[in-house]
């Protein structure tokens, strides 16, 4: 057995976030937990990163050890925002014991805390307790519930993602969060399986427009092909292509508000990609936009010339659900 001193989170890094018009240092933590209870989303490969049944001994000790490792390695002064993910729901008591939740809260007191959770675990009381532990009055909204809404289209969320919750569930959760004084961060998935390039652009653009009324923060996540997922099954058989980076630009450019976007696996075959020639400059541009919210940068990137742009425009026009994807 691994000794508790060696237990670490799945990943932990510092970065910079564009928040309320300025750049603030942030810390991102991905905790290893019992894993997501829903565990069915077609594109999700994180669900394999969990404690298996025989590792559950000392589970709480392991969680504490992960937190201790973070506290010991990242001085509290080095960040103002903490984003905590578990590829599941931090507020699900089955996944994370509530005692540990309060440990987290006190560890990150005074920070802006973003916590990943499914909407069904957002309850006013629970959030109020959590907020009272972190709030020092330094921030107007000390807590954000990060929900993988993916799309505002119930049909797509159900059939293309198998997400297991509806828009009304999301509205209820947002209401609960607001009552407790927490904000909502919505994750939007660009190009779930079974959608054409154009259908996915339209869907994400609509989603951002609609969700902007409810969520204070929006993050656009271009879909990637993760191991052992339904999406990978389709992808290997020519049934799925991750979105073009052009599409990512298109969706951001159509948004009226700032949308965070840090495309994972960008430029790789399994991630959002173009032809390979223009990928790097577009990815760099998106990363810059991510830090300054300057939409003119995105619009400028959409104007750059590359051979694959004609291809992308053709795909957007001609790809249909009965003949897709047309490219790989």
């Amino acid at each position, binding site marked *: 057995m691994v000794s508790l001193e060696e237990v670490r989170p799945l990943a932990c890094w510092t970065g910079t976030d564009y928040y309320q018009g300025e750049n603030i240092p942030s810390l991102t933590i991905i905790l290893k937990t019992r894993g997501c209870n829903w565990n069915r989303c077609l594109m999700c490969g994180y669900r394999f990163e969990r404690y298996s049944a025989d590792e559950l001994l000392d589970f709480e000790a392991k969680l504490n050890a992960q937190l201790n490792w973070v506290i010991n390695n990242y001085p509290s002064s080095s960040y103002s925002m903490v984003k905590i993910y578990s590829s599941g729901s931090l507020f699900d008591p089955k996944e994370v014991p509530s005692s540990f939740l309060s440990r987290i809260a006190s560890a990150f007191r005074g920070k802006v805390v973003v916590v990943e959770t499914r909407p069904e675990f957002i309850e006013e009381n629970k959030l109020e307790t959590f907020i009272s532990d972190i709030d020092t009055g330094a921030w107007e909204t000390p807590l954000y519930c990060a929900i993988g809404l993916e799309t505002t289209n119930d*049909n*797509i969320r159900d*059939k293309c993602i198998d997400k297991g919750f509806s828009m009304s569930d999301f509205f209820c959760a947002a209401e609960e969060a607001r009552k407790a004084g927490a904000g909502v961060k919505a994750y939007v998935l660009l190009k779930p*399986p*079974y*959608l*054409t390039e154009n*259908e996915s652009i339209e869907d994400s653009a609509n989603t951002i427009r609609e969700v902007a009324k409810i969520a204070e923060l929006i993050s656009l996540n271009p879909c990637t092909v993760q191991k052992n997922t339904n999406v990978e*099954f*389709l992808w290997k*058989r*020519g*049934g799925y292509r991750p979105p073009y980076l052009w599409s990512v630009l298109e969706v951001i450019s159509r948004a009226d508000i700032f949308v965070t976007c840090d495309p994972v696996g960008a430029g790789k075959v399994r991630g959002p990609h173009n032809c390979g020639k223009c990928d790097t400059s577009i990815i760099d541009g998106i990363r810059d936009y991510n830090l300054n919210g300057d939409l003119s940068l995105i619009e400028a990137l959409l104007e750059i010339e590359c*051979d*694959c742009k*004609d*291809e992308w*425009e*053709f*795909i957007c026009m*001609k790809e*249909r*659900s*009965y*003949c*897709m994807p*047309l*490219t790989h």
Partner: protein
Amino acid sequence: MRLFEIKNRDGLALAGHLTLDGVQTAFPVALDMNEKFPDLMHYHHDNLSLFQEKMQENWSDLQINPGMLHPGGKPVTRHGDILLVPNWHTAFINPRNYIEWLVSIRLKSPPDTLWYAPACALPSNVHLLVYSGFSIFDWTSVDLKSAQGIFCLQGCELPKVVEREGFCSCEGCRSGSLLLHNRLALLSELNTVRYYIYKQQLREYVESRSRLSAFQVTVMRLLDQCPVFLEPFIPVTRSVQMLATTEDSLQRVEVKRFMHRVLSRYIPPRNDVAILIPCSARKPYSTSKSHRRLKHIIRGRGHELIITSPLGIVPRELERIYPAAHYDVPVTGYWSQEEKKIIGAQIHEYFKNNQYRRVIAYLEGGALETVTAAFSALEVDCEIITRDDPKKDSMSGELDDALYGEKRKRSDIVRGTCLYQFDTSINTENFILKGYSPEERVFRNKMQLFSFDAHTGYLRPTFQGWDLIKDKYNVCIDPFIPQGDILAPGVVGADPQIREGDEVIVRGKQAIATGRALMSGDCMVESTQGVAVKVRKVMRIEPQ
């Protein structure tokens, strides 16, 4: 009004004409499908990968044209429709899936439907799509190549970096339009494919065109390995040449069927002596110089069996039948191991089942090696007379000597053909052949029973001839008196062993008729359009 008319079939491939907005177009064809079928725009958020049926419920709700045909979906029952096979372009990833899905959609759709393969057709692959049974295509795939700057040729796609000068001088290339060039290249290829269907030689074209793609050859070979599926679509007779120029020809249904019928249907006459002789370039063999000379030496003193590739044993009586009189092979005298193995096995089987007192092999090269190997495992000895110099036939004296004292017997072409064609043994006593080969008529007591079809070598029975064949190759029709050909909707039942090209007897309450089948027995029962039987003669049945 009917949307389309199927005029020609060649294996799974269909050709004919399609009427859209009052305009007639020949198919297989590439169309602007969204313009011709605006309903297609309703397919939205309805992706259904060929692998799964998850979103099936959405699809089946849509009552639009074209309808959908999916390998995992419900069988389509409506006739005369164009059917869209969604995402068929993804079938080009794995040839095994391609075949599995192809068999599935064929079995799930009526024979008188046209399949639309969206975003598939390129000049380099459309022959295979048509060979697989698809008839309708769109411009999506070639237009995508144009958007990517790729120059489409028959055999390949040239990337943007390759200099295009001098490859083509079509209207598109002259005017500098890649889009037009690529579309014209697809059109030209579709025209060629249509021509080969019309010529009944699509297989030959596909064999030659597929060589630049391992995928295409694999699909062709895997399809050949599904004989039960493929066989009913292949005609039993054709009147055109069959080119057996590749190793894959050995696996053709036509070849396997011939070899199989020689073993299973054909029964040799009671001859004591079998003489194995080589084939000739000229067909039927007996019209060649070498066979005329052989005939003169043998003089009926043995049963002549021609040993040839790819057909194996061709008994003399069957030499006029398709494809024995129709094949052409590159002759080098060399036989590949595959030829030796397949044909050797047939020879072995033939002589195991059929007893001769003596077997004389007057052969050389690969044919002789194959025969020798086949006989090594048999109890019968094979006397070998080697031909050193085929031109001089220096050993013909030796063959003559070997046959010294053997009884002469006439070759009975009617009996042999009847066995092969109808799987029926008839007593040919007192039969008289009139007229000249290959168009003899067969009489008994001044009553004509059969005539030979000069193009296919098949027998065309008269009503009296059919009396000898009894209850085989029947087509049952509704009670009407046929005026001209029998159309498929009038057929109520048909012998399932009927294939395109077979001679059949049509039976109805009001009339009987003789004729030739233009589709398989099952196909005539299932189809609601097209000519089922080309009628030769009709006889009314007088009401009693």
